[in-house]
């Protein structure tokens, strides 16, 4: 029983971070209808910001959230305004121009970081990095728990922002129906810029929270982009609430897979669920909810 609970705890804790990664991508997907394949790379940039602050200015990784999140917000806005939006006006053979652009952006970001930091592994050492506390026989890693709490706080703030503020409402309106929103006086170009910035800031927070637990190198982005994608599919494309379920589901599934099937098959379990969801439940968990209602 202990093994099962410990596995579940590990899955839920990592799931919290997956949620943050997934929500950002989901938000962008909802508003712009494109998959941001540079998502993991944006997280990698945030991790390097955190690393630099910590290694050279001795800023605690959690405090560096204050720098990394706005920093990535601005980077996201910049990318959307000058690289993605101009593409919308261009005629092209492929309608998925913007998606292709995100792939390119991701590569450029990774190579810039490789150029500056080389591809060595970097770690940030904190006094609490390896600390754990015990409830019964179950071990809770302290930085993981802090990350989980941060993830909840950030998500709650995001939902408040989306529900109560004018900009938040405009984002939701654009996601629901872009044309109608534009007719109602929403500046949809501005909204796309803010959304991409917001998505980047969210994944930046995930990056900073991962730093005390994990290490970083320029190629860390790719696997996380994939994870974010899986989470979005699990939750239902473009649904932020769905992304939370998706993140937790993926975290728990990976953990259970690692314990009961084999550590080497951990990623396979995640992708297996991905394929199953795509085939049998294309709407994701949100689609399932609708299905039950009807």
């Amino acid at each position, binding site marked *: 029983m*202990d*093994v099962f609970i*410990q*596995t579940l705890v*590990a*899955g839920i804790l*990592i799931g919290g971070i997956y949620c943050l990664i997934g929500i950002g991508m989901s938000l962008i997907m909802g508003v712009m209808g494109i998959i941001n394949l540079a998502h993991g790379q944006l997280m990698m940039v945030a991790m390097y910001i955190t690393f630099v602050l910590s290694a050279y200015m001795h800023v605690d990784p959690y405090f560096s959230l204050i720098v990394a999140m706005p920093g990535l917000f601005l980077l996201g806005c910049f990318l959307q305004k000058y690289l993605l939006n101009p593409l919308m006006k261009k005629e092209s053979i492929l309608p998925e121009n913007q998606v292709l652009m995100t792939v390119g952006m991701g590569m450029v970001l990774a190579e810039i970081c*490789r150029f500056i930091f*080389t*591809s*060595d*592994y970097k*770690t940030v*050492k904190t006094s609490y*990095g*390896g*600390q*754990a506390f*015990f409830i019964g026989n179950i*071990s809770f*890693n302290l930085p993981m728990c802090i990350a989980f709490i941060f993830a909840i706080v950030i998500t709650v703030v995001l939902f408040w922002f989306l529900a109560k503020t004018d900009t938040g409402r405009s984002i939701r309106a654009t996601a629901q129906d872009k044309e109608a929103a534009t007719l109602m006086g929403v500046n949809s170009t501005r909204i796309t810029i803010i959304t991409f910035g917001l998505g980047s800031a969210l994944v930046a927070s995930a990056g900073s929270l*991962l730093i005390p*637990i*994990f*290490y970083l*190198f320029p190629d860390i982005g790719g*696997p996380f982009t994939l994870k974010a994608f899986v989470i979005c599919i699990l939750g239902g494309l473009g649904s932020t609430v769905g992304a939370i379920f998706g993140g937790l589901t993926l975290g728990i599934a990976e*953990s*259970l897979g*690692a*314990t009961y099937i*084999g*550590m*080497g098959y*951990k*990623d396979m379990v995640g992708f297996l669920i991905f394929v199953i969801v795509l085939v049998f439940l294309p709407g994701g968990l949100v689609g399932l909810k609708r299905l039950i209602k009807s």
Partner: protein
Amino acid sequence: MKKVKILIGLVLAVAVIFSLWPSFSMAADTVEVGIVLPLTGPQAKFGEVEKLSFDLALEEINTAGGINGKTLELLIEDDTGRPDVGRSVVEKLITKDKVVMLGGGYSSSVTYAVAGVCQQNAMPFLVNTGSADKITGSGWDWIFRLNPPVSHYADAVKTLLAEKVKPKTVAILYENSLFGTKGAKSFQKICDNAAYKVLLKQGYEHGGIDYKPVLTQIKRLNPDIVYMVSYIMDASLLMKQARELKLTPKMFVGGAAGFTLPEFVDNAGKASDKVISATLWHQVLPFPGAMDYYNKFVAKHKRPTEYHGAEAYAACYVIADILKRAKSYKNTDIKKALSKTDMMTVFGPVKFTTWGKLKNQNIAGTYVVQWLDGKLELVWPTKHATKKFNYPVNWLKVWGY
């Protein structure tokens, strides 16, 4: 239009000149040897230790007169830890730089790929770290190896376990790479022969965040020994998370690689203490120059060195020795000189023979080291030991609980 043509012509001319440049610069008074090492990427730390050691040896060789009056030059290329990149840099070394022979070779996967290219091109290759058995076990006659194969890495651990720990049950964790799978397989064989029960044998994909699920399972099985074959970051994370879970077997054993680098202590901190690992070298071994090399390295780079560095340092001296003895720098003459090698290095005696299925293989010893207060101490075999093997260990106390 004419101007454009002239411009293109000029550019081409410059390009041709530059592409031929290395062969101009290869003046008669230098001998160029290609070295393949991972200088960036996941295995960069290992590559760095080896490169610094190669450089140290090179400096000494050249101040002592070089190769019969000629300067030895090492062209060190970065394989980034990826077999495909390894192949292409070696092809470049062979065809463009026209090196006389090759050295280096860190990870098994890369070394195996590189060795294949060398065999095809009849290029003598002295491997100093890549350890999968099939590198010298494929019947390739141009490949020579200084270090023992991975199937023998745990030889010293085997006797230590049999005499001191006497375990009944074992759990094996390994990275599912060439080095990891082969290391795990040969340890399983050792366990089977000694009738230790292997409760769990699991591979993992390197770069995981959370090893707790598998470690929890090991905790439930409660084996006497946890044997791990990992590179550096995974090794640290595994030990850190074992500490968090209070996983306490009788002994944690590392299968060399990630467990002997100073970065292991840096990253794993307290969780690294008292962990033992297989190793291939220690500075206190009674080989001439071993301690000297260690001291010189520490004095120059302000950090300790370990077996990977010693392999590289020794390899450089072996290369110099071969080139001194070779009749000419033709590949066949170098190969002949390689097979006649019989010398003493900081890594021990070097002589290439047939060892079981392995061809052109140097037979070297293995040892066991233990991390004691942040220092790597030789604990086995006892006749060379610097510190007594710390056993039994009260892990919870060591970890500060």
